[in-house]
């Protein structure tokens, strides 16, 4: 008796995929036959036929001949051939295996067809022309990059100096087969997998040590996704956003992703330092990686490895999804602003500078109401938006002179009272 897999294998016809853009390029190119590459997913009856090697190969690699000559394509001595035929509306492909015509030829859509399903909701031509910088390609940045690629954003600048590590996998888009790769390389591939026509620039650098590069990246971008894991980088990005008048979307989770928040900077509005410096914003945040947290000072240098492990508390991937989702929506609203697209109505909904979200009624949210019957009281799994007042004397975004910055600075009056005046006769002796 035949087993089920054998029956299925006999009854499943191979599926062939030909890249429409490559087909058009070959058809218009005027060259003769072309030795291409086939990639076959072993045992899955799926074959991709490419005119040029994929940057990262997948499946079992073989050869395929692209030709306009029917006799050549139908030759029994040619193991795999694609016959390219011109029609009024472009080129089509017919696949032959040892001269036998194959059915089930599918096309990987050409550029103008790739995101046709988004039409009516998003203005694709506008998104295609936009440049988004994503700083930090961890569990937040990786997902947001891919979502924006799926939406049709055309240009990406990816910044992160980390590599894919085992502890990333539970929440990151990368898979175990990508362990050790630079996140910029891995996410660039993921973006190009969704949108092969996207322009992707990679910067595997620590932006806190490359502020001039950060400045240039922000200047050349329409919008910056701030998905880093420390405030120093957020403050540095904030400075560049203010300097160049660019939109920034910040997001983070707090301990074990029991909640999180999203902040949007728009030129002329409150900046990240207006938010953090006003004393109402919690500095607590999720620590997902001991080495990174030590580097950023979130784990003090004197804390033992054992104690540090108790501080590293990572939440669920599902708990950061809502945060990533709002960041993507805010980004799409900002990138599409004024374009009268299907998401224009969100401009009237997503009007806040700062958004809070709680996943569980724990610690910081322990006193919030249970979801059933919460009514107008704060509860979990709902967004709460707030307008933040811009600080006109803010040390980061002020348009005033230094004498007015002083009004915003923490002048330490209480400390001054404690210290008293103890300066009489004191002189500076500089030993360096």
């Amino acid at each position: 008796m035949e087993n089920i897999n054998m029956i299925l294998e006999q009854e499943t016809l191979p599926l062939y995929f030909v890249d429409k853009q490559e087909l058009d390029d070959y058809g218009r190119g005027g060259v003769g036959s072309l030795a291409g590459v086939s990639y076959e997913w072993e045992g899955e009856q799926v074959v991709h036929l490419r005119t040029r090697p994929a940057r990262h190969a997948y499946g079992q690699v073989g050869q395929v001949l692209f030709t306009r000559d029917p006799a050549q394509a139908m030759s029994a001595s040619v193991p795999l051939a694609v016959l390219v035929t011109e029609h009024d509306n472009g080129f089509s492909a017919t696949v032959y295996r040892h001269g036998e015509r194959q059915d089930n030829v599918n096309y990987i859509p050409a550029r103008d067809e790739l995101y046709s399903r988004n039409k009516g909701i998003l203005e694709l031509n506008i998104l295609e022309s936009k440049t988004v910088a994503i700083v930090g390609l961890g569990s937040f940045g990786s997902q947001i990059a891919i979502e924006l690629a799926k939406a049709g954003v055309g240009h990406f600048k990816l910044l992160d100096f980390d590599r894919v590590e085992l502890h990333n996998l539970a929440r990151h888009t990368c898979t175990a087969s990508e362990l050790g790769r630079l996140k910029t390389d891995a996410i660039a591939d993921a973006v190009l997998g969704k949108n092969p026509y996207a322009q992707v620039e990679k910067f595997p650098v620590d932006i806190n040590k490359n502020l001039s590069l950060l400045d240039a990246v922000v200047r050349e971008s329409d919008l910056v996704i701030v998905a880093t894991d420390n405030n120093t980088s957020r403050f540095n990005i904030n400075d560049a956003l203010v300097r160049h008048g660019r939109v920034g979307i910040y997001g983070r989770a707090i301990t074990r992703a029991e909640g999180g928040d999203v902040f949007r900077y728009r030129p002329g509005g409150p900046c990240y330092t207006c938010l953090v410096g006003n004393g109402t914003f919690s500095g607590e945040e999720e620590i997902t990686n001991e080495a990174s947290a030590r580097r950023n000072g979130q784990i003090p240098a004197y804390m033992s490895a054992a104690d540090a492990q108790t501080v590293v508390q990572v939440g669920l991937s599902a708990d950061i999804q809502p945060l990533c989702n709002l960041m993507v929506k805010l980004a799409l609203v900002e990138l599409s602003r004024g374009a009268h697209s299907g998401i224009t109505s969100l401009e009237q909904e997503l009007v806040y500078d700062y958004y809070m979200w709680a996943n569980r009624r724990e610690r910081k949210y322990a006193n919030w109401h249970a979801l059933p019957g919460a009514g107008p009281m704060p509860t979990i799994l709902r967004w709460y938006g707030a307008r933040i007042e811009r600080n006109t004397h803010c040390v980061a975004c002020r348009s005033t002179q230094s004498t007015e910055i002083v009004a915003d600075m923490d002048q330490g009056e209480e400390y001054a009272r404690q210290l008293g005046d103890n300066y009489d006769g004191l002189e500076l002796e500089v030993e360096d």
Partner: protein
Amino acid sequence: MIDNDRMNAEVAVFNFNRVPQNIYRFMDMGTSKPWLAIAARTNVGNTYTLRIELDKFPNEIPKVFVTRMLTTRSGAPMSGVSASMHTLSSENGRTRICHYGSQAWNPRVTLFKIYAKCRLWLEAYEGHRATGRDLDYWLKHQA
């Protein structure tokens, strides 16, 4: 890195808090490694010079050193990381003071406030020298 606007604002805050201009000096401004030298005197009259590194200030917590290697009551150099003594790893033979934690830091924090906290650290240090108690006895930990 600190810019001229910020430096002028810091001077204004020092003035506001009646810190005389002869006890501090901005050093190596315009280079990649600017720093502030500032003198401090404790209540018992001992004087110290502090070095506050400004290359990443105000977006990052600046490193603060006493410009020499301090020793504990038992004579050991205060060169390493210590939670109870509120020190971080020394550099170039200078004791490094742990003064701010990342959660409490934002760019509004002034050099005067750092200076004031380090003055309190020096008082605690002298308390340690006098009693043998760790600095933890007097100082709270920063988040």
